[in-house]
C-alpha cells in the first residue's frame, strides 16, 4: 500500500477510535483524571484495549525499542509539563486535533497554542542544540 495512503487510513482509524471512546470530550477525560471526584474509569478501558492490540502488533513485528538513552530529566520534565497541560484542559494532542471538526473556537485556540508550544520548543531547544552539534562536527 502507498505509504501516504496507509498513513491517512491509520490516522482516520485513530481519529474514529478517539471519537468512539469519547476521548474527544475533555469533560470525559477530566472525569477519568479526577479520581477524588465522580470518577469515570472509562479511559482505562480505552488504554487497556489499545495496549492489547498494539502490544500484539509490536510483538509480531519484532519491533525492539531503539537503544534508549535512559530515563533523563528531559523526558520527565517534558512528561510533567504535558501532564500539567492535559490536566488543565482535558486535551492531549490527538483528541484535540480530531475535535477540530466540531468547529469549536475553543478547540482551535487550544490546537493553535499547542502548535506554538511545539514551535517554541523547536526554536529555543532544538535549533541551538543542532547548531552546537554541527559546530562540533566542524571543529
Amino acid at each position, binding site marked *: 500500500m502507498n505509504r501516504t495512503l496507509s498513513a491517512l487510513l491509520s490516522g482516520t482509524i485513530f481519529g474514529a477510535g478517539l471519537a468512539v471512546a469519547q476521548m474527544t470530550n475533555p469533560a470525559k477525560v477530566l472525569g477519568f483524571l479526577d479520581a477524588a471526584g465522580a470518577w469515570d474509569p472509562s479511559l482505562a478501558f480505552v488504554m487497556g484495549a489499545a495496549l492489547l492490540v498494539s502490544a500484539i502488533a509490536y510483538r509480531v513485528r519484532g519491533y525492539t525499542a531503539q537503544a534508549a538513552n535512559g530515563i533523563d530529566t528531559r523526558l520527565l*520534565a517534558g512528561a510533567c509539563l504535558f501532564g500539567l497541560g492535559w490536566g488543565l484542559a482535558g486535551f492531549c494532542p490527538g483528541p484535540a486535533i480530531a475535535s477540530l471538526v466540531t468547529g469549536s473556537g475553543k478547540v482551535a485556540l487550544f490546537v493553535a497554542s499547542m502548535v506554538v508550544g511545539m514551535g517554541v520548543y523547536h526554536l529555543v531547544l532544538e535549533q541551538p542544540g543542532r547548531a552546537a552539534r554541527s559546530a562540533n562536527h566542524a571543529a
Partner: protein
Amino acid sequence: MTEFTPVSAAIGGLLIGLAAALLLFANGRVAGISGILGQAMWPEAGDERGWRIAFIAGLPIGAVIVAQVGGPLETQIDASLPMLVLAGLFVGFGTRLGNGCTSGHGVCGMSRGSTRSVAATLAFMAVAGATVFVVRHVLGASA
C-alpha cells in the same frame, strides 16, 4: 460528571490499537501524534512530511465519520480561554521536550515495553491527576 462507558471505550481503544498496528506494518512508524505533528511542522533532514501530514489529516476525518454514523462527538470544554492557551502551550512544549504524549508513550511505547515510555506515562498521568485534584478540589472550580 460523565457516564461510565466501558464498551464504547474498549471499542475505541481497539480502533486506536489497530491504527497503531497499521502504521507499524505499512509504514514502519510509531503512531505518536505529538512527534508526527512536530516533525511535520519542523522536519529535520530526512524527515518525510507527506505521510505525517496524511496521518494528522486523518484524525478529524475519522471523527467526522463517527459523527456521521451517529456516534458521539460531544466536546464539553470547561476551561477558560486563557487557561486553554496556557494548557496548549504546556502540552505542545512538554510533548516535544519529553518526546511523546498519550499515544507515543502511553500506547505505543508502553506496549513495546519501553522503560522510558512507562516512566513518562506514569509521570504525565500523575501530574495530570494532581492538576485536576488541585483545580477541582483545592481551588474548588466546578466539577
